[in-house]
């Protein structure tokens, strides 16, 4: 929410680039099983995709791309997702966060753990995205008190 940058080149470039950076972040979250990446790095990339328009575009546009209520909402949903995934194995008789205890028909225990890792990574990514965007929004808001 810094405001509109004077150069049109910068504005257009950042508006075009921002969705692709966010998409790259989602790719990093999804690709964490097979290479470097995972929820933490991917969430940060999505947050960068949201911060870039806030740095260069007018407030109206950047808030339409990534509205400010998204940040605390995503953080809360991500943390809740992580916690709920941890609780599901307890219903199946296992320990907290022990995904292998859940029995899904036609799936080996290792496959269930694979899926559990994916869901946890998505939760972590959402939480990190929300936290980073919220910190940035809070630091750059203009009409503070005092």
């Amino acid at each position, binding site marked *: 929410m810094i405001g509109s940058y004077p150069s049109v080149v910068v504005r257009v470039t950042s508006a075009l680039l921002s969705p692709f950076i966010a998409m790259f972040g989602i790719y990093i979250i999804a690709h964490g099983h*097979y290479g*470097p990446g*995972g929820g*933490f790095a991917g969430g940060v990339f999505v947050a960068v995709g949201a911060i870039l328009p806030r740095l260069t575009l007018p407030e109206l546009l950047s808030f339409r791309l990534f509205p400010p209520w998204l940040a605390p909402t995503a953080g809360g949903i991500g943390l809740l997702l992580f916690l709920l995934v941890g609780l599901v194995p307890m219903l199946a008789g296992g320990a907290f966060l022990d995904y292998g205890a859940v029995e899904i028909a036609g799936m080996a225990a290792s496959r269930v753990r694979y899926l559990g890792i994916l869901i946890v990574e998505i939760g972590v990514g959402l939480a*990190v995205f929300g*936290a980073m965007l919220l*910190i940035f929004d*809070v630091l750059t808001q203009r009409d*503070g008190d*005092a």
Partner: protein
Amino acid sequence: MIELFLARYVYLFVLLLLAIGLYGVLAKGDLVKKVIGLTIFSTAIYIFFIEGSLQEGATAPVIDERGSDPALYVDPLPHLLILTAIVVGVGVIGVALSLLVRLYRVHGTLDEAVIADRIAGREDMSQETTPDDGTAPSAGDDPGAAGDDQ
């Protein structure tokens, strides 16, 4: 001598970085510079951990077609610990910076000594017992500045 350097140089450089960071946190009067020193200090600790995970002849801990022999891959546990530590470090920086912005809105400066003087001068005029903890050693020994501020 060369052998010793090759086996130990990481510790030497990490130690120097730690010293620079510690000096920045303790000696700098500007609060943003203090946070920068904190970042340098914590990053030096990250480097220490990650260099400790290194093994001769090992590659990144992604299991490939060579199989699951642990000797082929570097130790992944420090990677995990530092990965989360980096993210938490950024959270710490975010909270520190928001506190800085708040302090600046109230006091109009980021000079630690001025802020400490002002807080001490407001709470008790004798200035002998500052409510601050040990981070502000110059709060009590500079009565002139507090007098100017009030």
